[in-house]
Structure formats: C-alpha cells, structure tokens
C-alpha cells in the first residue's frame, strides 16, 4: 500500500505541467532536427539511416537521455531535502531503500518513455511514417532503458552523497562523458556512452560519428559482451552504493540543523 502511494506521488510529481512541457520540447526538438536534416541535406546524398543514426547518437542518447537522467535522479533526494518534505518520508515505517528504489524506478520509467518518444520522433522525421518499424529503431528502444538505468543509478548515487548534485551531475554528463572519450588511448572506456554506442550501433557514417565525438584515436571499442557487463555492473554498484548511503546518512534540511 505504501509502495503504491509512493509510486503515485513520485509519478504525479513528474507529470506536473512544467516537466511535461520539458518532455514535449525534447520530443519536439528530436522531430524538428530530423525534419531539418531531411530538408536541408542534398536529396541525392540523403540517407535516412545515416540521418537517424546521427540524430539518435548525438541528440537522443547523448542529450535527452543524459539530461533527463541528471535532472530526475539527482533530484530524487535533493528535491525532498530542499523542500524539507524529506522529514515526512524518513519518519515513516518504510525502509529507506524502498523509498529510494520506488522513486528511482519512477524516474527511470519516465525518462525511458520520453526517450522512446524522442527515438520515435527522430525515426518519424528521418525515415518517414512508413519505416517506423525499422529494426534499428526497435533496437534503440530496447537499449535505451539500459542506458537510462546506468546513468540514473550514477546520478542517484550523486544525489544521495552530495548537497548540490545537479551541477556535478551536469559536469559529469556533459563534461566528463565528452572529455574522457576525446582522450587518447583507453579514455573512451571510462565513458558510459561508449558502451551504449556499442550496444546500439548505427550503420551511418561511422567515421563522421567518430570525428564528431572527438574520438580520433584508433583504439578498438569494447566488445558487446564487455559493454553488457560494464553497464550491468555500473548500474548495480551505483544502486547498491546509493542504497547504503541513503540508509545510513542523515538528511536534515540545512537551516533546521541546530
């Protein structure tokens, strides 16, 4: 019963007009960029799969997925602390790990659904409605939750450990993730996005993707097996660490301490 109400409350929080508008903008942008690519590129050389691949890799996975995961998951604890409503949650007979897990799963669910819509919008704009069922599209939709789970668990961990997790989360998502892949050698192995890309490859001009991602060094990407292991491990380790942190740390609104 308590799980249902926690789930419902968390879900309703994500369905507030402001958040829905942000989701609509993400999906709308995915569609608009796709349309622009289709219209502006030379029809002779325009390849829908390439356009879709670029859009999915650089907008949906690298931006929509990460920004939503950062905002939703760093806020799971921080928002409750900031609003001081954490007091109500932590003085009820519900184990802390359950509170955290329910809120995490809601964030993952919402991010995944918005991500799926962005993938579909990208496919609709680049392929056209007749080819929405392309195997690449379906495959992206299957891998997207894997990426969401991994990123969300990392940002959840940040949210349980840091007082201002949003800024560090953004630095990680748009600083570290891009910077480390640009480093020579095996730097790309330290980026979650590398593994997502291995799991959701796109046939498009791979050289262009590599150039745009600044990954100019000829180190082989990790194998699919390694990518699965890393994604699952990162998700589990970060989740367990977040649960331990949330179950043992004190969360008291700062100005109330005294």
């Amino acid at each position, binding site marked *: *019963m308590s799980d249902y109400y926690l789930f419902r*409350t968390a879900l309703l929080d994500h369905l507030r007009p402001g958040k829905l508008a942000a989701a609509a903008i993400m999906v709308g942008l995915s569609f608009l960029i796709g349309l622009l690519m289709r219209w502006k590129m030379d029809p002779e050389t325009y390849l829908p799969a390439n356009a879709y691949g670029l859009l999915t890799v650089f907008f949906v996975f690298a931006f929509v997925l990460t920004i939503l995961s950062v905002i939703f998951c760093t806020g799971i604890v921080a928002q409750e602390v900031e609003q001081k409503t954490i007091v109500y949650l932590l003085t*009820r*007979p519900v184990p802390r790990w359950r509170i955290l897990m329910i809120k995490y799963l809601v964030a993952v669910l919402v991010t995944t659904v918005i991500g799926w819509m962005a993938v579909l919008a990208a496919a609709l704009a680049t392929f056209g409605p007749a080819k929405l069922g392309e195997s690449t599209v379906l495959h992206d939709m299957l891998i997207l939750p894997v990426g969401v789970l991994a990123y969300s668990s990392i940002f959840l961990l940040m949210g349980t450990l840091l007082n201002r997790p949003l800024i560090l989360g953004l630095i990680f998502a748009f600083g570290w993730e891009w910077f480390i892949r640009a480093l020579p050698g095996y730097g790309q192995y330290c980026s979650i996005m590398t593994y997502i890309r291995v799991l959701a490859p796109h046939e498009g001009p791979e050289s262009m993707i590599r150039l745009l991602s600044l990954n100019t060094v000829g180190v082989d990407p990790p194998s699919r097996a390694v990518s699965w292991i890393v994604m699952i491990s990162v998700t589990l380790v970060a989740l367990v660490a977040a649960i331990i942190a949330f179950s043992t740390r004190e969360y008291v609104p700062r100005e109330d301490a*005294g």
Partner: protein
Amino acid sequence: MIVLEQASRWYGQVLGLNDVSCIMPVGITALLGENGAGKSTLMKLITGQLKPTTGRVLVFGEPPFANPRVFRKLGYCPEIENNYDDMTGRDFVTMLAAMAGLPSSTLKSRVAESIETVGMTGAADRKIGGYSKGMRQRIKVAQGIVHDPDALILDEPLNGLDPLGRRDISTLLHELASRGKSVVISSHILYEVEQMTRNMLLLHKGRLMAQGDIYQIRGLIDSHPHHITITTEQARPLAKHLLDLPYVSSVKFDMQDPRLLEIETRAPDQFYAQFPDIVLEHGYKITNFESPDNNLEAVFKYLVNG
C-alpha cells in the same frame, strides 16, 4: 518510552546538544528553550533524523535512526511549513497514513477521522498550497495522529494557529495523553505550554537545565525568593502581621497602589499553609492574591539568567 542517556550531538565544531539524559514518560512533556537551545536537535534525535554523536537515544527501547519498528509507533509533526503543496490535504494524510502501514481496509476511514479531529474536513480536498498557516498546522497534526501512534512528537505545534485552533490542538493533546500516549511538544510560547502541562524539560545552550514538575523545580530554587502579590484594603496591618513571620524576608508597598503588597519568602509552602489562618483570624479582605513566580516564565528566567 523515550530515553536519552548522556546524548550529545555535534554539528562539526558546533555543539547542538550536550550530554543530555532524560526520560519522557506517558503524558505531555514540554520541551522549552530559546532559539538555538537544542530543542530541534533533541526532537530530530528522538524522531531518528539524526544520530547522537555520543550517548544513546532510545524510543520504545530501540535506537530510532532509520528504524521502521520505532516509526510504526511514533507520530511526528515537524515545524516546517513546507508540505507537498500540489497535493490536497486528504491525499497528503492518505499517503503518509499508507506509509505508516495502515491497511487499505481502514485507510480511508482513519484518514477522514484524523482530518475531522483537527477540524479540516471542509478544506481537506483543497490543495495544501492554498492553505493558511493555521490550516497547514492542523493538517500536519492530522498526519501525525492518523496511525494512532503511542508517542507523538510535535515541534512548535501552536505556531500560526488562531486561539480557537490552539484550544482545539491543546484539547486533542490532553485527550491523547489521557489515553496513555507520550506527547512531547516544543514551544517558545511559555504561557500556552503552561496551560497544557506541568512536566517540562528546559534546555539552554544545548544543556538540560531542568526537568520535571514546574512547581517542584520552582521549589528547589532556594537562592531566589518567592514573590507573592496581595491586594487588600488593609495593606498596612496585614504587612505588619506578615513581617512577624520568620520565613517572610520582606514586604514592599507599591508606590502607585497603596492596596498592593509584594511579599518575598524563602518558604512558600509554609507561607501558603499559614496565610489563610492569618486572614481569617484578623478578618482581612483579600481582593487579589497571586504569585508571579509560580509560572513557567519565572522559572525559565531564574534558570537561564541565574
């Protein structure tokens, strides 16, 4: 029910609570102190939001930090005004009632009952964001009592309430106490606390200055004479009689009102026992008799200011 054993709590270099040992029994216990005295820290320790740096805090025999077994029997009404503003009052109480473990079969009726108890039935289906301060206080109390806890902790529960609201909450707390519950309230409005309970814990700069019955505590403060004011038309002859008593240290006349006497005694109990006999024997007409020292504020001033 609630026990602190040499509990201290540091916030980095700042001492929030210093070596406090006390027991909060069944009935109403008032937690008093100025801002920064450690009231909130003590409440957060009891409600398991903080862990003591040293010492122990036990609620129903167990440490409360992240302990669902304790929270099942504990109700908490925090001082914060922030609630889930997008929720209705009913949804807010329902969510927290469900989290408190109430079964679905009784959830709705228990929520309605607790909302009615705090007089919020008419506004329960409005969003909390539109509530006045007093309404927020009432709905907070509703969520605190909805699961019928054995101990209820209320941080400044009377803040923002109108006189009627204060009376209602006060009556409710008395009812809970009479049903064998432990009720701990913190307040800086001494007068109102005094109307609710005589059992108090007085904190000052993180230390427990005094605990127990307010009158007993007052009686133990020997270094401060006990003041009594008497209004009578026969002030002078009464003053003479009172000065003959060995435990009356001084009698003062009021310059503005010649009917008013201010007595100082170091043995108030003896004075109270003998005074009616003197009055009856000599036929004095007493129009007013009061002791400003027998209230909480006086005790508080004595203990804090020395």
